């Protein structure tokens, strides 16, 4: 009944103000998207964008249900090898159980931090979760005013568009419905 993973479609759009050793990145930046240490994919290299690269690269990955973060690692191919420019971690709860339904195309942006932990630019992505059998949305539960009155297992009917929403049992039962995050 439960699926082991969901499909995540993530399009890495662009990044802003990337620097290495406080100097703007010249070229050849790319991004490695990972769901867990063994499961990662990389975008193409942007040869021209410099410190404001744009990729518009769509990656499709399987995301196990218990995943908590999707990690974006921005790297740069230089003449002396590869350097890590910055890292951002997207909490899965930001796009599942947030304001937008997970199956809806969402645009998210995150602060990148370099290996020393200092701010180093911003990364922009768009993503969507494809056709989960069990759509978990604590937002839907919270929509009922916090009382779990309408909880049921919902299975999308064949032929429905991706925007179809069903009320499901939230997996993270500890998710407070009125928190700010």
């Amino acid at each position: 009944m439960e699926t082991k993973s969901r499909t995540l479609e993530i399009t890495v759009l662009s990044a802003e103000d990337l620097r290495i050793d406080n100097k703007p990145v010249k070229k050849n930046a790319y991004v490695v998207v990972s769901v867990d240490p063994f499961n990662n994919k990389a975008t193409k290299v942007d040869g021209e964008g410099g410190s404001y690269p744009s990729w518009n690269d769509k990656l499709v990955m399987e995301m196990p249900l218990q995943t908590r973060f999707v990690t974006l690692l921005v790297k740069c191919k230089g003449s002396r090898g590869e350097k890590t420019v910055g890292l951002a971690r997207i909490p899965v709860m930001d796009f599942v159980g947030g304001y937008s339904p997970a199956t809806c195309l969402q645009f998210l942006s995150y602060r990148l931090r370099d290996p020393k932990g200092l701010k180093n630019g911003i990364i922009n992505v768009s993503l969507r979760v494809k056709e989960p059998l069990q759509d978990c949305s604590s937002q839907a539960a919270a929509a009922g005013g916090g009382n779990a009155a309408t909880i049921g297992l919902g299975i999308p009917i064949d032929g429905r568009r991706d925007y179809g929403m069903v009320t499901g049992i939230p997996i993270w039962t500890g998710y407070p419905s009125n928190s700010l995050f």
Partner: protein
Amino acid sequence: MGNCCSDVGGGMTAIGGTAPSTSTSNQNDAADWYFKSHGIHGIFSQIELSFSATNLRDRDVFSKSDPMVVVYIQERDGAFTEVFRTEVVLNSLNPTWITKYTITYQFEIVQILLFRVFDVDTQFHNVEVKMLKLEEQQSLGEASCALSEIVSKPNRSLTLDLVQREESVPSTHSQHRGKFTVHAEECFSSKTTAEMTLKCLNLESKDLFSKSDPFLVISKVVESGMSIPVCKTEVSKNDLNPTWKPLFLNIQQVGSKDSPLVIECFNFNSNGKHDLIGKVQKSLADLEKLHSGREGENLFLPTPVGHDNQNKALRSKLFVEKYSETVQYTFLDYLAAGFELNFMVAIDFTASNGNPRLPDSLHYIDPSGRLNAYQKAIYEVGEVLQFYDADKRFPAWGFGARPIDGPVSHCFNLNGSSNYCEVEGIRGIMMAYTSALFNVSLAGPTLFGHVINRAAMIASQSLANDAKKYFVLLIITDGVITDLQETKDALVKASDLPLSILIVGVGGADFKEMEILDADKGERLESSTGRVASRDIVQFVPFRDVQSKSSTHSDISEMFRIWDYITIDFHFADGPSVVQELLAELPSQFLAYMRSREIKPCS
């Protein structure tokens, strides 16, 4: 003294066809500039109004009425000015007039129109319509409405009852004066943009020691035979088989899909003198055929031989790798498809406003009827937005006060109910506001987070129901927010929703800190968890209440003397107010949201 050397890099960039046209205005730069320099911002489509009527009264003795429509626009001071007359339709009580009135649709103001139907007396028929004296004609009735009422209807037609003005004695039996219908059509040149990827094979080498650095220039051919460049690609260095980046051309830029275009391939030289490698002459329709047939077209070089200009065919070929057309929908297209703008309002009830019963309070309700700053702001924004909301039920909240028995609430329903937050119409907001004023005690501090989260929840539920709604939250406040980070967190979380937030600051506080929230004036908002706002959804403007509305010279100098503010906002009789400038940005934000998610208006 200028630069010694030119910026070669700059000369190599693509011009003209680089991105799909995201402008929300007419594709006419000169008109854009004219409007902007006259203070008209945002979108301004041209609308064509056509008129018809049914069951008009019969005024003539021996034949039916000969009706004509006169159109009036309401000016800022409330008076109506005549702007247009249709032709006279002979002998008809159910006329459809042919001549149409073109008006510029401005989202941010309420454009009130008045239509008067006259029966033209027989003896004036050979006179031009303009010359007819209206006092000498017989009125068949009049009707009035706002332009936004017409365009927000699904079929863009509005039918009104004709009434007779100056009816001193209300009649007991119904006066059938007939019905009047106005229909609106948007005038647009073209909404279609063609995207194509061009490449060439086997180009000739024009440089001595290296290959060519080719780029393309696409020109349109005008009636006189001249060719006018429309766009150029970037330079592809050292490549005889280049593929350039995608080009976007709006059909209107080139005339029509069948207009002849000249595509020339040049070799780039840093001294500015580029050699022509070859050219082709194709229309967009031809290029589409090349793409579908996967064929190439040979370039040719015009070589003067004797008296004729013969064309030397080259081995080089032009290919169209990709060709696709997309339609750029306008704001009015979305309205016609049933999309709505839903208005929500949140009012600051903190103690810094002053005791509402005292005349110097920002919340003072003047018995003479003069609106206070809060009422003015609600009215200015609400009266424009109400037409775009189908059910006219607006969520209204207050924050920073203590309801009768309870702790301070940072988001309470203005109507006093504990179940639902909506009120009916702008009037409902005003009534709920005045009654709330005397049912709560002003407290503090000033926090926006709760109100923003409530609005975000509403937008989120609408999104889950796939509703075609875009939400506009108006927050009116007199002070600076206490917890900036909590507000930023709420805004970042809500930035991906179909929501725009307008913050209006009233009173004399220093709102410098609030400007941080408006990304136009600063950086993108960042939450405490490292997430960054994906869109700029906040606009902030200080709404300084000026005592008098007049703009005479002596009054202005008086104001400068009395107040020592550095910036003063005037509400001139003939210019847009600051709130209107805020509103003018809304359709662009709406369109940017819809287009980025590829949500199309399909009815």
